[in-house]
């Protein structure tokens, strides 16, 4: 049997996602992170595009979940040294450096950092500002434990010289004798999520970076924008702290550059990154703010990106299609002067207060060393080499990869790949699922239903964090006078292991049936104390915390008396609230361990196979009479891999798999239920019970019409990309005689009716042009484009095309190419912006790179599963950044073109990711459901349906017969929108009902 554990290297968002997916689906995960905390690059960002979500807000819950996971062994300050063995049975050596702070004792009060006399550059803020030698990299760090930096610690350099931290630490956590450890780990597979390094522009002398104070990088600017950054979110320029008004972003610094940086690839994310910064900076700015972005091609090829770009332009971000030649000081005040060449070749100058370099992504040099040690192949750009048809597989079996270490990519793509890598890593270990994991056992729960409340209150000193301000003893005494409080006690550290053990005994001895802890924040500590209640035989929901540290002693340092009164108030409020709370059931739903996959294209088949190979039965439903979907008309990938053999092989695998039931010419007519237990009816009358569903209903090529018809369907020399592919598949000889071919890009894309970029067409068209040129080197080929969007390493294909002599002529929406015919001869007139004149072409072949549209069936399937669709008919994922394959409806996942246009390899990755997420459900016997849910009082409900409308999860529906609403507890997330929306007060949120909230409010006033 293989090992039931997996090694994940890298604690950025990709590594965290992979670790969570694996641990949740039954494997023990060793998560190796080289710094003191997980979070990676994403944690350094202020906002994320295209939603402008606060990065820390959306990331933090994942980090906390990772840190608390019973089956994730978090190894910080660690590096993978060696890996031996084979898939299913590796031996890894991980070297862990000393932290010098005992994490089991550290209470994260921060006194060590406060007292530490040694200031060093803050690398988390990219060297902007200072931190101490004893430090926490960022406020939401997981683990929330301080560390001592041995390179700068005075004591560690010269023992005996300082030790201030050890003196003030109230928990005795400082351990200068801490030693490095080598962990030998037995794992079945490995996931590498090593991330990227931002390109260092110092070597590009024309930028002035390092010499000119007000030239900074995008990552640095991100820290300037962040509220937790060095300037608390106030935009300042480095030279004089003034708020900059004129700011320029220079794109492609260290990307698409074969001359200086030797990074020919496109870094994929920088265009959106810069636009986002321009937009956010404009929001931060006080008064006038003029952002300018200097770019070559604007690459906004992701979901929602093009619209973001359009909005940015409308809102005053100016865009200049120009490569900047040099940045020079404009004056002595720190302003800067840019010299650049406009599209027509003219030299221009512009002055700015600050210049931000959109630095590209590159592979870290340590990654290259590690790849060597692990014997992994790298590609010509030093990214870890992967297989086209398995984009997360490395050259070494059993070792998988995800995120930017394999190619520059954005967060959602990294998260998708992380899940896909988790799938692959887990799939080969499927027989060992749950073999290495731990399971928590609890004693039998006491029934307190009929008991009058007996409340116990535990008040925490938190060392001196609370006690130095609040009179903890007085609060404890006071708590004893409150109604129904039968016990109160103060503790030095309520969360310390010995106090927790003692609390279990106290609950039992005092026969407590409600518990209040007055200490720190429930956000970090509620799970721990709830666990304690369960250990003592109480339901975990009869518990409240009063936050007398983060929201009292820490914020009222100079008002001890008021803080003490407030602590009493907060404790009284918690007591009032807990008094009305009741034991809640731990809802679970028994899982039907099978899946339905809708759509028989590459996405659907990949998902089906991924699940079936782990022994889960799958029904694959395809609307048409054959499998394969759009791939049936694809010739090759941009890396020159033929699609048809791969497709044929995949179809054969699907058809021959004993656990896949293929239903062709079949559709879904009805679906109901929730995660773990769906019931779906097919058009053939079949009824399926299944635990999960994957929606991969695909997309379709836009059929040109109106301004964008270009004689398509009228002149037989006009074809779409897919039609040409078909001819190539059929090995047509037609192209041998073609003298001139013209490609028009963006046919039907990036226009008001279809405002999205179809993402694949630039690459597809260029690849096709290259193929035609290879077949017929004499052919003249013109590409009429708006922006070339060969993102990532596809940029190399663009370079190749130009080298082959393919001519690129840009057009814009003011000058759409005009196509006419004269006696069957095509005539194309287009405006060439470089010569600023109209040119005429008379090609033998016109190829239209048409848009990709969602299938109409997507929205009906979405409706069946209560999933959302976006304004354009693409399916809407649960969260654009961090849940790219989930729907808001649990247990339903999406992949492929129904989500957004994407190339084959991305569909495959997404399908595997969807399968990974589905595997989490299928690997469980029952899935937990929210316990704090809404409930309807049928006597009070009038059936007006307001609750149904305001529920974002479709958890509330109407019982049409009785005309009252019903809450599906399995779908309810406990937000309470329905409760607040109900005029009749017919809905309540269990334990957070109006009565409990009112009791807490009332208690605030003694």
């Amino acid at each position: 049997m293989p090992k039931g554990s997996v090694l994940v290297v890298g604690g950025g968002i990709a590594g965290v996602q992979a670790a969570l997916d694996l641990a949740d689906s039954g494997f023990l995960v060793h998560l190796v992170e080289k710094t003191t905390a997980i979070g990676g690059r994403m944690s350094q960002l202020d906002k994320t595009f295209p939603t402008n979500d606060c990065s820390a807000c959306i990331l933090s819950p994942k980090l906390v979940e990772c840190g608390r996971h019973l089956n994730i062994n978090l190894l910080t300050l660690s590096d993978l040294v060696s890996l031996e063995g084979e898939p299913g049975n590796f031996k890894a050596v991980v070297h862990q450096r000393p932290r010098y702070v005992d994490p089991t004792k550290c209470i994260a009060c921060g006194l060590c950092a406060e007292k530490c006399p040694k200031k060093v550059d803050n690398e988390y803020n990219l060297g902007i500002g200072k931190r101490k030698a004893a430090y926490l990299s960022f406020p939401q760090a997981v683990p929330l434990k301080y560390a001592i930096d041995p390179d700068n610690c005075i004591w560690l350099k010269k023992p005996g010289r300082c030790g201030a931290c050890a003196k003030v630490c109230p928990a005795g956590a400082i351990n200068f004798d801490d030693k490095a450890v080598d962990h030998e780990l037995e794992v079945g597979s490995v996931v590498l999520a090593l991330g990227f390094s931002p390109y260092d522009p110092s070597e590009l002398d024309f930028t002035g970076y390092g010499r000119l104070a007000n030239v900074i990088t995008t990552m640095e600017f991100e820290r300037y924008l962040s509220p937790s950054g060095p300037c608390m979110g106030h935009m300042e320029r480095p030279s004089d702290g003034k708020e900059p008004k004129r700011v320029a972003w220079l794109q492609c610094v260290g990307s698409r550059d074969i001359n200086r940086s030797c990074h020919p690839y496109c870094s994929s994310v920088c265009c959106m990154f810069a636009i986002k910064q321009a937009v956010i900076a404009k929001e931060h700015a006080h008064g006038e703010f003029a952002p300018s972005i200097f770019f070559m091609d604007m690459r906004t090829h992701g979901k929602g990106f093009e619209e973001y770009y359009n909005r940015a332009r409308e809102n005053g971000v100016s865009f200049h299609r120009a490569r900047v030649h040099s940045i020079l000081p404009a004056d002595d005040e720190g302003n800067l002067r840019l010299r650049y060449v406009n599209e027509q070749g003219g030299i221009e100058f512009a002055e700015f207060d600050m210049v931000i370099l959109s630095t590209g992504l590159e592979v870290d040099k340590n990654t290259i060393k590690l790849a060597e040690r692990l014997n992994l192949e790298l590609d010509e750009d030093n990214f870890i080499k992967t297989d086209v048809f398995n984009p997360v597989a490395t050259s070494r079996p059993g070792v998988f990869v995800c995120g930017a270490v394999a190619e520059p990519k954005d967060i959602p793509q990294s998260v998708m790949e992380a899940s896909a890598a988790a799938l692959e890593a887990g799939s080969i270990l499927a027989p060992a699922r749950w073999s290495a994991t731990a399971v928590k056992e609890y004693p039998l729960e006491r029934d307190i239903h009929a008991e009058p409340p007996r409340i116990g209150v535990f008040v925490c000193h938190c060392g001196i964090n609370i006690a130095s301000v609040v009179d903890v003893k007085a609060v404890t005494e006071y708590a004893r006078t409150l109604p129904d409080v039968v016990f109160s006690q103060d503790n030095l550290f309520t969360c310390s292991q010995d106090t927790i053990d003692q609390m279990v005994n106290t609950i039992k001895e005092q026969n407590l049936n409600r518990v209040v802890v007055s200490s720190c924040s429930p956000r970090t500590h509620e799970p721990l104390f709830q666990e304690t209640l369960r250990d003592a035989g109480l339901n975990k929901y009869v518990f409240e915390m009063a936050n007398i540290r983060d929201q009292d002693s820490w914020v009222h340092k100079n008002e001890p008396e008021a803080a003490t009164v407030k602590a009493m108030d907060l404790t009284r409020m918690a007591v009032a609230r807990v008094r009305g709370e009741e034991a809640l059931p731990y809802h679970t739903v028994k899982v039907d361990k099978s899946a339905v996959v809708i759509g028989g294209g590459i996405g659907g088949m990949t998902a089906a196979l991924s699940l079936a190979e782990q022994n889960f039965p799958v029904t694959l439903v395809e609307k048409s009479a054959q499998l394969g979907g759009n791939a049936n008309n694809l010739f090759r990938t941009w890396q020159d891999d033929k699609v048809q053999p791969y497709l044929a092989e995949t179809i054969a695998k699907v058809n021959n798999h004993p656990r896949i039931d293929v239903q062709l010419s079949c559709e879904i007519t009805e679906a109901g239920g929730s995660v773990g237990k769906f019931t779906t009816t097919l058009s053939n009358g079949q009824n399926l019970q299944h635990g999960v569903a994957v929606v991969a209903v695909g997309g379709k090529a836009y059929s040109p019409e109106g301004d964008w018809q270009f004689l398509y369907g009228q002149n037989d020399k006009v074809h779409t990309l897919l039609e040409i592919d078909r001819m190539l598949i059929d090995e047509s000889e037609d192209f041998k005689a073609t003298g001139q071919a013209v490609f028009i890009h963006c046919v039907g894309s990036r226009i008001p009716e279809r405002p999205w970029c179809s993402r694949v067409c630039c690459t597809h068209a260029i690849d096709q042009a290259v193929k035609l040129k290879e077949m017929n080197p004499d052919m003249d080929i013109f590409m009429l484009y708006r922006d070339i969007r060969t993102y990532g390493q596809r940029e190399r294909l663009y370079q190749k095309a130009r080298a082959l002599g393919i001519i690129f002529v840009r057009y814009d929406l003011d000058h759409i190419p005009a196509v006419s015919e004269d006696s069957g001869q095509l005539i194309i007139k287009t405006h060439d912006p470089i010569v600023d004149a109209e040119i005429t072409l008379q090609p033998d072949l016109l190829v239209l790179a048409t848009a990709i549209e969602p299938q109409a069936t997507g929205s009906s399937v979405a409706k069946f599963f209560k999933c959302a669709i976006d304004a354009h008919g693409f399916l809407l994922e649960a969260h654009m950044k961090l849940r790219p394959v989930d729907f808001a409806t649990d247990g339903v996942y999406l992949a492929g073109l129904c989500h957004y246009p994407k190339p084959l390899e991305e569909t495959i990755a997404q399908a595997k990711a969807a399968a990974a997420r589905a595997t989490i459900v299928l690997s469980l016997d029952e899935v937990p459901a929210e316990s704090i849910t809404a409930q309807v009082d049928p006597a009070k409900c009038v059936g007006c349906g307001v609750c149904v409308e305001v529920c974002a999860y479709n958890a509330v529906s109407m019982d049409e017969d009785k005309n009252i609403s019903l809450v599906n507890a399995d779908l309810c997330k406990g937000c309470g929108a329905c409760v607040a929306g109900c005029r009749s007060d017919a809905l309540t949120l269990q334990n957070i009902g109006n009565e409990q909230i009112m009791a807490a409010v009332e208690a605030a006033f003694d």
Partner: protein
Amino acid sequence: MATINSKISEEIRALAGKLLEEKKIAAFLGYCQGSLPMTARPFVARTPEDTDKLIWNSFCVLNLANYLPELLKSLEPPRGPRDPAPEGPLPKVAILATGCWSRNIVIQIQENQVDRDRVVICGVGSRGMVAQAKVKELFDGREILEVIEEDHKLLVSGNGFNEEINRWNVVRDNCLTCIHPDPVIFDIRIGDEAGQRKNDNRFAEVEKIDNKSTAERSRWFTDEFASCIRCYACRNACPLCYCPTCFVDDAKPQWVGKSIDQVDTSIFHILRAYHCAGRCTDCGSCESVCPMGINMRILTKKLTSDVLNLYGSEAGMALDAPLPLTTYRQDDPQNFIITEQAADKEGE
């Protein structure tokens, strides 16, 4: 001389008689003559004979939609909690509906209180209903014993007086500012369209209060609502108040005290109005029925004005228009959010 209303009354009687005779409906919801001057009494005709009593005049102040849900329910066969739903079509009701009443029926349909298939909406254009109180005020305590309505005037008489007044001068304030006098939804049309009524400032009464200082508004509110006796006539006359248990009657939790404590009374009126937000059609029933003469309608009118200004929606104008509190736009106005105010200020 046949007046507009007498012709409409005729038409109503003929229509109701026909519908009942043909058994197309089980009941016709209209008005009959009241026992006092200037009163019309809501009336349910259940037989063709009953229909003789049906009338239409300027005193039909109470919104008939108020009765519709309960009347429909009363016509269903009795059914225990575990009994299956009755089979076959259920009895229908025909109802008179002016502009605002019809809009309330729209909301009742949207909120599942009324089954569209079970109502025959008989649309009547409203010429504005008369406020009894306004007439009485003109006569300053002298008891009015008879009022005869003509198209444009009222002939008012009592002991020792006999006067003629212009009808429009005593039309209710809500009707004076109404721009939707014609039904937005109906099956059968009665009488002529009332047509578009122009109004330069529909919300002048709201603005009058808006323009006061905070202290003045507070004083006004306290005075206006001081005489409330908590009889709930305003609530019960409202076609939108159909909660099985009103929050004021709730004991668990106890939102407010039940007596006429000034704070509790205020909270009742605030929440009653708020619950009508985006649903109120300014039909004026609440104000018309108040035995203490309180103008609680101004609160819902304020909300109506805000809903229109902030979200561009008017209650009950179409069956497929979402109610404003059950929907949102990402760019809804938010200048009341203090963090946005700060951002706005910085942006200036």
